[in-house]
Protein backbone atom coordinates (compact mmCIF):
# COMPACT_ATOMS: atom_id res chain seq x y z
CA UNK A 1 0.00 0.00 0.00
CA UNK A 2 2.81 2.32 0.96
CA UNK A 3 4.44 2.02 -2.47
CA UNK A 4 1.16 2.61 -4.33
CA UNK A 5 0.77 6.09 -2.78
CA UNK A 6 4.39 7.18 -2.91
CA UNK A 7 4.23 8.70 -6.41
CA UNK A 8 1.06 10.82 -5.94
CA UNK A 9 2.40 12.06 -2.59
CA UNK A 10 5.72 13.06 -4.11
CA UNK A 11 4.03 14.79 -7.05
CA UNK A 12 1.73 16.64 -4.67
CA UNK A 13 4.64 17.79 -2.55
CA UNK A 14 6.56 18.94 -5.64
CA UNK A 15 3.55 21.01 -6.78
CA UNK A 16 3.19 22.61 -3.34
CA UNK A 17 6.87 23.51 -3.07
CA UNK A 18 7.01 24.99 -6.58
CA UNK A 19 9.39 24.03 -9.36
CA UNK A 20 12.82 24.84 -7.94
CA UNK A 21 15.96 22.83 -8.51
CA UNK A 22 16.99 21.32 -5.18
CA UNK A 23 20.63 22.36 -5.63
CA UNK A 24 19.52 26.00 -5.29
CA UNK A 25 18.92 25.26 -1.61
CA UNK A 26 22.69 25.63 -1.02
CA UNK A 27 22.56 29.41 -1.38
CA UNK A 28 18.87 30.00 -0.78
CA UNK A 29 17.72 32.41 1.97
CA UNK A 30 14.39 34.15 2.41
CA UNK A 31 15.78 37.19 4.16
CA UNK A 32 18.68 39.58 3.80
CA UNK A 33 21.76 39.09 5.96
CA UNK A 34 21.05 42.39 7.73
CA UNK A 35 17.49 41.34 8.54
CA UNK A 36 18.61 37.98 9.93
CA UNK A 37 21.39 39.44 12.04
CA UNK A 38 18.97 41.90 13.63
CA UNK A 39 17.27 39.08 15.51
CA UNK A 40 20.02 36.47 15.62
CA UNK A 41 22.75 38.69 17.07
CA UNK A 42 23.24 40.54 20.38
CA UNK A 43 26.20 42.26 22.05
CA UNK A 44 27.23 41.73 25.68
CA UNK A 45 29.45 44.05 27.75
CA UNK A 46 32.29 41.64 28.46
CA UNK A 47 35.71 41.02 26.94
CA UNK A 48 35.89 37.43 28.17
CA UNK A 49 35.30 35.15 25.17
CA UNK A 50 35.84 31.89 27.04
CA UNK A 51 33.43 32.83 29.83
CA UNK A 52 30.82 33.90 27.26
CA UNK A 53 31.15 30.55 25.50
CA UNK A 54 30.81 28.75 28.83
CA UNK A 55 27.63 30.72 29.57
CA UNK A 56 26.26 29.86 26.12
CA UNK A 57 26.94 26.16 26.78
CA UNK A 58 25.29 26.34 30.24
CA UNK A 59 22.25 28.06 28.71
CA UNK A 60 21.94 25.41 26.00
CA UNK A 61 22.10 22.70 28.66
CA UNK A 62 19.36 24.48 30.61
CA UNK A 63 17.29 24.40 27.43
CA UNK A 64 17.73 20.62 27.15
CA UNK A 65 20.33 20.61 24.37
CA UNK A 66 23.12 18.08 24.01
CA UNK A 67 26.28 19.55 22.49
CA UNK A 68 27.61 18.40 19.14
CA UNK A 69 30.76 20.52 18.84
CA UNK A 70 32.63 23.31 20.56
CA UNK A 71 35.70 25.26 19.49
CA UNK A 72 37.10 28.01 21.66
CA UNK A 73 39.42 29.50 19.01
CA UNK A 74 36.72 29.79 16.38
CA UNK A 75 34.23 30.65 19.12
CA UNK A 76 31.51 28.24 18.00
CA UNK A 77 29.17 25.84 19.75
CA UNK A 78 26.75 23.53 17.95
CA UNK A 79 24.06 21.63 19.82
CA UNK A 80 20.95 19.50 19.23
CA UNK A 81 17.67 19.34 21.10
CA UNK A 82 15.48 16.26 20.81
CA UNK A 83 12.00 16.62 22.21
CA UNK A 84 9.76 14.83 19.77
CA UNK A 85 11.38 17.12 17.23
CA UNK A 86 15.00 17.72 16.22
CA UNK A 87 16.31 21.25 16.58
CA UNK A 88 19.91 22.14 15.76
CA UNK A 89 21.58 25.42 16.67
CA UNK A 90 24.98 26.99 16.15
CA UNK A 91 26.13 29.84 18.38
CA UNK A 92 29.14 31.98 17.55
CA UNK A 93 30.96 34.29 19.93
CA UNK A 94 33.40 36.90 18.65
CA UNK A 95 34.88 40.11 20.00
CA UNK A 96 33.36 43.46 19.05
CA UNK A 97 35.88 46.18 19.85
CA UNK A 98 37.75 45.79 23.15
CA UNK A 99 34.86 45.63 25.54
CA UNK A 100 32.09 43.60 23.94
CA UNK A 101 31.30 40.11 22.71
CA UNK A 102 28.95 39.51 19.81
CA UNK A 103 26.79 36.42 20.21
CA UNK A 104 24.94 35.10 17.19
CA UNK A 105 22.68 32.07 17.01
CA UNK A 106 21.10 30.39 14.01
CA UNK A 107 18.77 27.43 14.12
CA UNK A 108 17.46 24.73 11.82
CA UNK A 109 14.34 22.71 12.42
CA UNK A 110 13.47 19.82 10.16
CA UNK A 111 14.26 21.09 6.67
CA UNK A 112 13.92 24.77 7.49
CA UNK A 113 15.72 27.65 9.13
CA UNK A 114 13.92 29.01 12.20
CA UNK A 115 12.65 32.56 11.58
CA UNK A 116 10.38 32.96 14.59
CA UNK A 117 11.46 36.13 16.45
CA UNK A 118 10.20 34.82 19.81
CA UNK A 119 12.52 31.83 19.49
CA UNK A 120 15.59 34.09 19.34
CA UNK A 121 14.26 36.46 22.00
CA UNK A 122 13.75 33.52 24.36
CA UNK A 123 17.32 32.36 23.81
CA UNK A 124 18.82 35.74 24.61
CA UNK A 125 16.55 36.11 27.66
CA UNK A 126 17.89 32.79 28.98
CA UNK A 127 21.47 33.76 28.09
CA UNK A 128 21.16 37.12 29.88
CA UNK A 129 20.32 35.24 33.08
CA UNK A 130 23.36 32.97 32.74
CA UNK A 131 25.68 35.89 31.91
CA UNK A 132 24.25 38.31 34.51
CA UNK A 133 24.47 40.85 31.66
CA UNK A 134 22.08 42.62 29.35
CA UNK A 135 21.88 41.68 25.67
CA UNK A 136 22.22 44.81 23.53
CA UNK A 137 20.74 45.07 20.09
CA UNK A 138 23.37 45.62 17.44
CA UNK A 139 22.86 48.28 14.79
Amino acid at each position, binding site marked *: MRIRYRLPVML*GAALLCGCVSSIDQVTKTDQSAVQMRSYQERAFDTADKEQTLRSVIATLQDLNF*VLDKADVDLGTVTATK*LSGYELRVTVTVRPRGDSQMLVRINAGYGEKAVKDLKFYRDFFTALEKAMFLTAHEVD
Partner: protein
Amino acid sequence: MRARRTTWHGLMSATLIALGVLFVAGCETLPDNAMALSPDSLQQRQLQTRRVEGIDEKALLAASAGVLQDLGFNIDEAETRLGVIVASKKRSAIDTADIITSSLETLAVDLVFSLVFGDHFSDDGEISIDVTQKIRISIVTRPALDSSGQPRKDAQVIRVTIQRLVWDDDGNLTHAESVEDPKVYQKFFDRLSKSIFLELQAI
Protein backbone atom coordinates in the same frame (compact mmCIF):
# COMPACT_ATOMS: atom_id res chain seq x y z
CA MET B 1 -21.19 -4.01 -3.90
CA ARG B 2 -18.10 -3.86 -6.03
CA ALA B 3 -18.85 -0.19 -6.96
CA ARG B 4 -19.31 0.80 -3.32
CA ARG B 5 -15.96 -0.62 -2.36
CA THR B 6 -14.26 1.23 -5.21
CA THR B 7 -15.78 4.53 -4.03
CA TRP B 8 -14.63 3.83 -0.50
CA HIS B 9 -11.13 3.07 -1.66
CA GLY B 10 -11.13 6.16 -3.88
CA LEU B 11 -12.15 8.34 -0.97
CA MET B 12 -9.58 6.78 1.32
CA SER B 13 -6.78 7.16 -1.20
CA ALA B 14 -7.66 10.83 -1.74
CA THR B 15 -7.56 11.44 2.01
CA LEU B 16 -4.29 9.57 2.40
CA ILE B 17 -2.71 11.50 -0.46
CA ALA B 18 -3.88 14.83 1.00
CA LEU B 19 -2.47 13.89 4.41
CA GLY B 20 0.75 12.69 2.83
CA VAL B 21 1.22 15.96 0.97
CA LEU B 22 0.61 18.00 4.12
CA PHE B 23 3.12 15.87 5.99
CA VAL B 24 5.82 16.03 3.31
CA ALA B 25 5.30 19.78 2.84
CA GLY B 26 6.06 20.15 6.55
CA CYS B 27 2.92 21.62 8.05
CA GLU B 28 4.44 20.73 11.43
CA THR B 29 5.81 23.81 13.16
CA LEU B 30 8.30 24.18 15.96
CA PRO B 31 6.57 24.44 19.36
CA ASP B 32 6.27 28.00 20.59
CA ASN B 33 8.28 27.30 23.75
CA ALA B 34 11.19 25.45 22.12
CA MET B 35 13.73 28.03 23.31
CA ALA B 36 12.04 29.10 26.56
CA LEU B 37 13.23 27.85 29.94
CA SER B 38 10.69 25.28 31.12
CA PRO B 39 9.34 25.41 34.70
CA ASP B 40 11.20 22.20 35.53
CA SER B 41 14.53 23.33 34.07
CA LEU B 42 15.92 24.07 37.54
CA GLN B 43 14.95 20.60 38.73
CA GLN B 44 16.54 19.06 35.63
CA ARG B 45 19.70 21.06 36.25
CA GLN B 46 19.97 19.71 39.80
CA LEU B 47 19.41 16.18 38.57
CA GLN B 48 22.14 16.54 35.96
CA THR B 49 24.71 18.46 38.02
CA ARG B 50 27.22 17.45 40.72
CA ARG B 51 29.94 19.34 42.58
CA VAL B 52 33.26 17.55 42.83
CA GLU B 53 35.82 18.56 45.47
CA GLY B 54 39.57 18.02 45.45
CA ILE B 55 40.13 17.79 41.70
CA ASP B 56 41.17 20.21 38.95
CA GLU B 57 39.20 20.62 35.72
CA LYS B 58 41.61 18.64 33.49
CA ALA B 59 41.64 15.66 35.85
CA LEU B 60 37.86 15.71 36.10
CA LEU B 61 37.58 15.72 32.30
CA ALA B 62 40.02 12.80 32.13
CA ALA B 63 37.97 10.90 34.71
CA SER B 64 34.82 11.68 32.67
CA ALA B 65 36.40 10.37 29.47
CA GLY B 66 37.32 7.25 31.44
CA VAL B 67 33.77 6.64 32.62
CA LEU B 68 32.46 7.19 29.07
CA GLN B 69 34.83 4.49 27.86
CA ASP B 70 33.73 2.22 30.74
CA LEU B 71 30.18 2.61 29.47
CA GLY B 72 31.16 1.89 25.86
CA PHE B 73 30.72 5.40 24.47
CA ASN B 74 32.87 6.77 21.66
CA ILE B 75 34.05 10.33 22.09
CA ASP B 76 32.85 12.47 19.17
CA GLU B 77 34.16 15.84 20.24
CA ALA B 78 36.16 17.41 23.04
CA GLU B 79 37.20 20.97 23.86
CA THR B 80 39.01 20.89 27.18
CA ARG B 81 39.39 24.68 27.32
CA LEU B 82 35.60 24.91 27.57
CA GLY B 83 35.23 21.79 29.70
CA VAL B 84 33.31 19.95 26.99
CA ILE B 85 33.20 16.27 26.04
CA VAL B 86 30.60 14.85 23.62
CA ALA B 87 30.13 11.12 23.13
CA SER B 88 27.69 8.64 21.65
CA LYS B 89 26.97 4.95 21.26
CA LYS B 90 24.60 2.80 19.24
CA ARG B 91 22.83 0.04 21.09
CA SER B 92 19.85 -2.28 20.86
CA ALA B 93 16.52 -0.69 21.74
CA ILE B 94 14.57 -3.91 22.02
CA ASP B 95 12.27 -3.74 25.01
CA THR B 96 10.09 -6.79 25.69
CA ALA B 97 7.35 -4.87 27.54
CA ASP B 98 7.21 -2.40 24.65
CA ILE B 99 6.80 -5.19 22.06
CA ILE B 100 3.80 -6.64 23.93
CA THR B 101 2.12 -3.21 24.21
CA SER B 102 2.62 -2.33 20.55
CA SER B 103 1.34 -5.75 19.40
CA LEU B 104 -1.82 -5.24 21.43
CA GLU B 105 -2.21 -1.71 20.04
CA THR B 106 -1.86 -2.95 16.47
CA LEU B 107 -4.44 -5.65 17.10
CA ALA B 108 -6.86 -3.08 18.55
CA VAL B 109 -6.38 -0.71 15.58
CA ASP B 110 -6.92 -3.60 13.14
CA LEU B 111 -10.12 -4.54 14.92
CA VAL B 112 -11.50 -0.98 14.78
CA PHE B 113 -10.66 -0.69 11.09
CA SER B 114 -12.39 -3.99 10.27
CA LEU B 115 -15.47 -2.92 12.22
CA VAL B 116 -15.67 0.50 10.54
CA PHE B 117 -14.78 -0.46 6.99
CA GLY B 118 -15.93 -4.08 7.07
CA ASP B 119 -12.68 -4.92 5.39
CA HIS B 120 -9.13 -5.87 6.27
CA PHE B 121 -7.75 -2.44 5.65
CA SER B 122 -4.45 -3.09 7.35
CA ASP B 123 -3.81 -6.19 5.29
CA ASP B 124 -0.07 -6.39 5.88
CA GLY B 125 -0.58 -6.98 9.63
CA GLU B 126 2.89 -5.62 10.27
CA ILE B 127 4.01 -4.82 13.81
CA SER B 128 6.82 -2.32 14.11
CA ILE B 129 9.14 -2.62 17.06
CA ASP B 130 11.99 -0.41 18.25
CA VAL B 131 15.28 -2.11 17.49
CA THR B 132 18.13 0.42 17.44
CA GLN B 133 18.98 3.49 19.47
CA LYS B 134 21.70 6.10 19.40
CA ILE B 135 22.48 7.54 22.82
CA ARG B 136 24.22 10.93 22.89
CA ILE B 137 25.79 12.47 25.95
CA SER B 138 27.47 15.79 26.61
CA ILE B 139 29.55 16.45 29.69
CA VAL B 140 30.37 20.02 30.66
CA THR B 141 32.63 21.00 33.55
CA ARG B 142 33.36 24.40 35.07
CA PRO B 143 35.36 25.54 38.08
CA ALA B 144 33.25 26.01 41.21
CA LEU B 145 33.32 29.56 42.59
CA ASP B 146 34.71 30.53 46.00
CA SER B 147 32.93 32.86 48.44
CA SER B 148 34.26 35.93 46.62
CA GLY B 149 33.04 34.62 43.25
CA GLN B 150 36.47 33.60 41.97
CA PRO B 151 36.92 30.25 40.16
CA ARG B 152 38.53 27.57 42.34
CA LYS B 153 41.25 25.24 41.04
CA ASP B 154 40.39 22.38 43.38
CA ALA B 155 36.61 22.13 43.03
CA GLN B 156 34.51 21.68 39.89
CA VAL B 157 30.90 21.55 38.85
CA ILE B 158 29.94 18.93 36.28
CA ARG B 159 26.71 18.73 34.27
CA VAL B 160 25.66 15.81 32.10
CA THR B 161 22.87 15.86 29.52
CA ILE B 162 21.72 12.74 27.68
CA GLN B 163 19.39 12.23 24.74
CA ARG B 164 18.49 9.38 22.43
CA LEU B 165 17.15 8.58 18.98
CA VAL B 166 15.27 5.31 18.48
CA TRP B 167 14.55 3.51 15.19
CA ASP B 168 12.15 0.65 14.48
CA ASP B 169 12.80 -2.44 12.36
CA ASP B 170 11.79 -0.54 9.19
CA GLY B 171 14.46 2.06 9.91
CA ASN B 172 11.90 4.75 10.81
CA LEU B 173 12.72 7.16 13.61
CA THR B 174 10.24 6.51 16.43
CA HIS B 175 11.61 8.55 19.34
CA ALA B 176 13.79 11.65 19.60
CA GLU B 177 13.96 12.64 23.23
CA SER B 178 15.93 13.97 26.18
CA VAL B 179 16.63 11.41 28.86
CA GLU B 180 15.08 12.76 32.06
CA ASP B 181 14.99 9.66 34.25
CA PRO B 182 16.76 10.53 37.56
CA LYS B 183 17.95 6.91 37.91
CA VAL B 184 20.02 7.17 34.72
CA TYR B 185 21.87 10.24 35.99
CA GLN B 186 22.29 8.76 39.47
CA LYS B 187 23.91 5.65 38.00
CA PHE B 188 26.14 7.73 35.78
CA PHE B 189 27.40 9.83 38.70
CA ASP B 190 27.99 6.69 40.81
CA ARG B 191 30.21 5.41 38.03
CA LEU B 192 31.90 8.79 37.79
CA SER B 193 32.78 8.84 41.50
CA LYS B 194 34.63 5.55 41.05
CA SER B 195 36.40 6.84 37.96
CA ILE B 196 37.42 10.03 39.82
CA PHE B 197 38.80 7.92 42.65
CA LEU B 198 40.90 5.93 40.18
CA GLU B 199 42.01 9.12 38.43
CA LEU B 200 43.15 10.70 41.71
CA GLN B 201 44.94 7.48 42.71
CA ALA B 202 46.93 7.62 39.49
CA ILE B 203 48.14 11.17 40.08
